[in-house]
């Protein structure tokens, strides 16, 4: 321990000295003596080894920061045998002669491997400075490109149109690909599921609602060959399809109706973004357009309310919503939230890992991270009136003009009140504060000690009750003030009625951000940092808008800005020379986000289409072809069927990015129609986790779907689409556990709140308990796939929760009305509505016992608790 501390000190000094040189590589090179290690080996080690093999971080016990440590080696033994590269693990693993290949992520170039080999063969000497472990963070500004070998990784290659496997018995392309892999392992596919199972599966999958008995009857009656396709078409045309699939996207978008953090401010118009997403799915908005609108809906050639609302995607994450101007690090956190969401959500890449250093596993440079922040650096959050464009501009101009006039008059009022306020303050200080504070206030400023100055300045910011000001004010001043107040009233009478305000993102200058909701909480305008020069938050001419300088941050530290960055994208996934800025005719924004959106949705982007196709696949089949939906990098799971994924990605883009076509493609495969209730010991031996898709994977319904299916089964559900959020009842004792701020307009349980779960208000600091129990993901970061737990609180909720019991009673009542006095028929109806099938003989027996010794509610409640009820299978 002591040795470590001692040896750290000189390094710290070195680090500090080094910071100023970060962007001057030539200086470094000159300051070192010419040596193979310094010139050739050290840069490689800094870039690729020392992140994980240093004195501080010894992955596998190995420290490569000094010759001694490298010779001592790690748990696998010495890393270097001087003079013998072939026997040296370091070389062997770099050259891929021995596993695991190093470095993780991007292999070294041939020339680099050769250099290491030569260096070891000539004795592996370290020169002066070689033992100084400088984290590669310090050098990141240098890395401006990735080696060509990095581009060879499958996910960075453009997907190619794959030839369909031949010699298959299947007609469907998906089945051909799957069959080829199954054959290799000798696993046997399950037979098709029965018609009713498929009906329920398709309904739950596409709309998140079970088929009604009438829908079931209609489907059974359709004996045509195209019955299945008809069903899919009908479900895709349902408005509830958009609700179901929109919800999946809202997970990606980390959507909530409140800000989070201490104040957890209500976002009263956030739901418009939620409805935008639902509508986009219902309209089958092409995915490239869907992404473009969400990234740059304010920069399009034709902007509409919808495209502006779409930018809500960028700001859907948690925000502190106050003291932003005084805390520059917060803005960087917001930008990081956007980069992380676009990276993981759209690109399937953990770009945000490169905020402080080059990515440890993937060829993502810290430079890429700051090029991408430069692409969104105009980012500001604002509100936009929901009016036709001309009127909207007029409204904004009018209100800002009125605001200015009002604040001028307010200033006059303040001047009248100030002497009274000052007197009252002094009186209050004398009464409520210690003597030394009062003394400090009474002492003339020039006579105050330094400490008294601080005390006086602090205490003079206290407030006094308005009523006291009024009661001490002279009649004359009151009259003067009344005149001014009526002036304000006069001005205010011209104020146009406030239209709904859209919560949007556009370009602006964050340094002039107006006060946020929370700025008043602090209530100390004197404490705020003022901008250095005048400027405006939003650009409204003359001339073109200019993006504020977007720096590189050394080690990701907002207080250590490096060089100014120009926009660019992920180097390793960039083909050709995409535009990085597309000037906008109106000059109000930079066009950088539009360029980013175009790159994301270009046919030359290797990631976007694959990532979306894979997400859709995940929801249909319960596991992505790449199981880590948000990570297609080296440490993500590798694809089980890369050719299939690529084939679908190419099809998808060729067919115009239609998600509905994608559903149909997947659902018409035999793989989708396979039974899930199928055992095969040999298959289990070969492919325990069912990666090869030899049976359909049952999936527990998500939290929202559990609630929706309960209400749909009972018949109580209100299927109105869209609109303001609802607040289903939460017991007071749970509300008490949440923090003081934040909105929850508790509504009693009843038909008004029996709307789909999509519409339940999402408050960041208080999850709706029912959803939380059923694995609602964290709402603050983009979600990959949801967890599925099976725990006792779920059982308690389904057994005892008053809402569930109420629905069970409603369900029973409804059946009773349809088949009074006929227990057998009642049991049948309960099974048909609840499980889309008839009961077996044994089930009839259990049901009959239950109903006859108790009530029909006993049975309907049991149905809500059945495993079968909770699964799509």
């Amino acid at each position, binding site marked *: 321990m002591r040795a470590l501390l001692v040896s750290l000190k000189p390094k710290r000094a070195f680090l500090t000295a080094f910071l100023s040189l970060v962007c001057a590589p030539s200086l470094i090179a000159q300051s070192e003596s010419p040596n193979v290690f310094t010139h050739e080996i050290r840069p490689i080690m800094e870039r690729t080894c020392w992140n994980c093999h240093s004195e*501080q971080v010894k992955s596998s016990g190995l420290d490569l920061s000094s010759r001694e440590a490298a010779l001592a080696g790690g748990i696998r033994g010495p890393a270097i045998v001087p003079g013998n590269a072939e026997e040296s693990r370091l070389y062997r693993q770099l050259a891929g002669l021995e596993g695991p290949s190093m470095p993780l992520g991007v292999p070294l170039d041939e020339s680099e491997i050769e250099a290491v080999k030569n260096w070891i063969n000539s004795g592996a000497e370290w020169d002066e400075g070689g033992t100084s472990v400088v984290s590669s963070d310090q050098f990141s500004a240098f890395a401006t490109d990735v080696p060509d070998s990095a581009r060879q990784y499958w996910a960075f290659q453009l997907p190619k149109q794959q030839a369909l496997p031949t010699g298959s018995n299947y007609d469907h392309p998906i089945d051909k690909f799957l069959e080829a892999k199954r054959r290799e392992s000798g696993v046997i596919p399950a037979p098709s599921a029965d018609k009713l199972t498929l009906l329920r599966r398709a309904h739950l999958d596409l709309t998140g609602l079970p088929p009604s008995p009438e829908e079931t009857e209609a489907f059974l009656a359709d004996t045509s060959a195209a019955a299945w396709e008809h069903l899919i078409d009908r479900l895709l045309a349902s408005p509830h399809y958009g609700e179901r699939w929109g919800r999946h996207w809202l997970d990606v978008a980390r959507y909530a109706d409140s800000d989070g*953090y*201490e104040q957890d401010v209500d976002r009263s118009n956030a739901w418009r973004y939620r409805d935008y997403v639902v509508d986009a799915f219902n309209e089958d908005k092409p995915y490239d357009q869907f992404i473009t609108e969400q990234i740059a809906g304010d920069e399009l050639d034709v902007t509409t309310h919808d495209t502006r609302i779409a930018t809500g995607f960028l700001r859907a994450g948690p925000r502190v919503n106050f003291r932003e101007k005084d805390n520059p690090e917060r803005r960087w956190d917001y930008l990081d939230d956007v980069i992380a969401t676009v990276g993981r959500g759209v690109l399937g890449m953990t770009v945000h890992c490169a905020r402080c250093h080059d990515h440890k596993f993937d060829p993502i440079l810290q430079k890429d991270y700051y090029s991408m922040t430069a692409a969104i650096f105009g980012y500001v959050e604002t509100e936009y009136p929901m009016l036709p464009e001309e009127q909207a501009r007029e409204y904004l101009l009018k209100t800002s003009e009125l605001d200015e006039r009002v604040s001028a008059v307010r200033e006059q009022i303040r001047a009248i009140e100030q002497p009274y306020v000052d007197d009252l303050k002094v009186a209050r200080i004398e009464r409520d*504060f210690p003597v*030394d*504070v009062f003394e*400090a206030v009474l002492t003339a400023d020039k006579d105050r000690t*330094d*400490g*008294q100055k*601080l*005390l006086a300045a*602090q205490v003079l*910011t*206290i407030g006094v009750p308005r009523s006291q000001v009024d009661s001490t004010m002279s009649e004359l001043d009151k009259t003067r003030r009344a005149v001014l107040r009526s002036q304000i009233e006069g001005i205010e009478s011209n104020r146009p009625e406030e239209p709904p305000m859209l919560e949007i993102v556009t370009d602006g200058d964050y340094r002039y951000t107006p006060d946020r909701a929370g700025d008043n909480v602090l209530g100390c305008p*004197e404490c705020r940092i003022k901008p250095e020069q005048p400027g405006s938050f939003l650009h409204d001419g003359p001339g073109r808008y200019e993006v504020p300088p977007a720096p590189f941050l050394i080690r990701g530290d907002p207080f250590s800005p490096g060089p100014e960055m120009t926009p660019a994208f992920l180097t390793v996934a960039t083909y050709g020379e995409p535009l990085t800025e597309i000037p906008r005719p109106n000059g109000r924004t930079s066009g950088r986000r539009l360029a980013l959106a175009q790159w994301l949705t270009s046919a030359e982007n290797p990631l976007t289409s694959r990532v979306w196709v894979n997400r859709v696949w995940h929801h249909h089949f319960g596991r992505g072809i790449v199981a880590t939906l948000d*990570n297609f*990098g080296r440490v*993500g799971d590798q694809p089980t069927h890369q050719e299939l994924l690529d084939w679908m990605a190419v099809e998808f883009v060729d067919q115009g990015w239609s998600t509905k076509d994608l559903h149909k493609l997947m659902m018409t495969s035999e793989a989708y129609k396979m039974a899930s*209730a199928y*055992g095969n010991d040999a298959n*289990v031996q070969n492919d*325990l986790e069912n990666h090869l898709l030899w049976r359909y994977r*049952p999936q527990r319904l998500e939290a929202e779907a559990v609630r929706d299916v309960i209400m749909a089964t009972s018949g109580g559900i209100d299927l109105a689409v869209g609109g303001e959020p609802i607040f289903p009842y939460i017991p007071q*004792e749970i509300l008490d*556990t*949440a*923090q*003081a701020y934040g909105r929850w307009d508790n509504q009693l349980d009843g038909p008004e709140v029996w709307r789909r779960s999509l519409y339940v208000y999402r408050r*960041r*600091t*208080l999850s709706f308990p029912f959803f*939380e129990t059923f694995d609602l993901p*964290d709402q603050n970061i983009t979600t*990959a796939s949801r*967890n*599925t*737990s*099976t*725990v*006792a*609180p779920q*059982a*308690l909720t389904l*057994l*005892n929760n*008053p809402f569930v*019991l109420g629905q069970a009673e409603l369900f029973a009542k409804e059946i009773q009305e349809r088949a009074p006095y006929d227990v057998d028929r009642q049991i049948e109806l309960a099974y048909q509505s609840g499980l889309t099938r008839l009961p077996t003989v044994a089930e009839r027996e*259990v049901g009959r*016992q*239950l109903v006859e*010794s*108790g009530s029909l509610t*006993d*049975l309907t409640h*049991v149905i809500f*608790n*059945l*495993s079968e009820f*909770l699964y799509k299978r």
Partner: protein
Amino acid sequence: MGHSHNNKKKIWSRREFLMRSGGGIAGVALASMLERDGVFAAEGLLNADQCGVQVPSAFSPKLPDFAPRATNVISLFMSGGPSQVDTFDYKPSLTKYAGQPLEDLIGTKFAVRQGMPGPLMPSPFEFKQHGDSGMWVSELFPHIAKHVDEMAFIKSLYGRSNDHIQATYEMQTGQIRMGFPSVGCWVTYGLGSESSNLPAFVVMNDYRGGPLGGPNDWGSGFMPASYQGTLFRSSGDPIVDLETPQNMTQDQQRARLNALARLNQMDMEKYPGNSELAARISSYELAYRMQGCAPEAIDISAESEATKKLYGLDEAITQPFGTQCLMARRLVERGVRFVQLFMGGVGVQNTDTWDAHSNLVENHTLHAKESDLPIAGLLTDLKERGLLDSTLIVWHGEFGRMPISQRGVGRDHNPGTQTAWMAGAGIQGGQAIGASDEWGYKAEQQPVSAHDMHATMLHLLGLDHEKLTYRYSGRDYRLSDIEGKPIPQIIA
């Protein structure tokens, strides 16, 4: 146990099963029961007398990495941020330099959370040395002061945010941002549950309300939700939806549960090798046991008068937190792995938590009085019952407070240093670790981060903080992140 999961075909990896069955509330012993008809028979488990009986389970508890010093934790979180210079960090220099600007003494400018800085302010509370070790404690904690020889004080715990919420997240999860698992989750993830009748991680809030930061303080972040703390209320039903609704008889519930078990059993047979379905069946058994056992666990009516007095239940001011401390002991006795108590809850922030911006004397006198005797009682009680050595007690807030005054009457937030203490777990008591500077403004000697504190806690529980990782979004996350190290004096 002949019918344990081990005898069944292994379908899931152990990790996957633990994830799905929720590690924390894992106790699963289904096989033998399922073979009987009527699992939920009248003579079944809904009987508090049997709550001490551990139902054998193949899944929990999990083995630690090395011999643990403690098996359970009681974390006492002082919400709002108690002042170190008024409690355990005695600074005579504050008297010497009273009324002077701190800026002049330290030579640098600094910002405070609310408005502008005031001059240095001496503690209005008297300090004395206590115990054989001579630890300094202010007059605020006369009862805790009697235990100083069992307590290790960390006088240099620092954080990165002067915002309550973010600072609370840091102390609870290691990160100042939302979305990360709390210490209790990590411990549950690492060690599983000792109890088959109760959750492994239980949280109890102040009677005035939840702490700043809300449920994220005990949330599971990117881990499965099953690892998150289960909130127990200290009156009424401890868990929401625990109790059978009033209009349902126990017979009725039993009839439903028995029918459910039979139908689910028939269903499971159609899905060979699907252990999720088995887990679901057993989750109903645990739910049934919890209905009986959770209320028993926090039912303090059976405690002796002497015990109640020890925790201050006979005095109105100490009764609320005393009740929670006593419940914490009962939960630990019953195998709950991690008990998180919050002292101070959001009602009126400046008075209901330790957030003494506007009246230090009144605020700290109140909260110290509410918690001093109960905490001392807890230490005494655990020791008398032989539980102190196997239980780790941790006390801290989200940050400390400034040595300078706020308008002559309060103190502003200070993430630069706070004093935390640990006791139990065989820790060498009567020692002070690290030190703040002359004014109690910043950690100076041996600064201890939240990561260090968390690494220390894991180590005491027998977990290697470098090996306890959770893979999320392609990265192996650690509670102690990349730089946390156990505090050597505590794990010595």
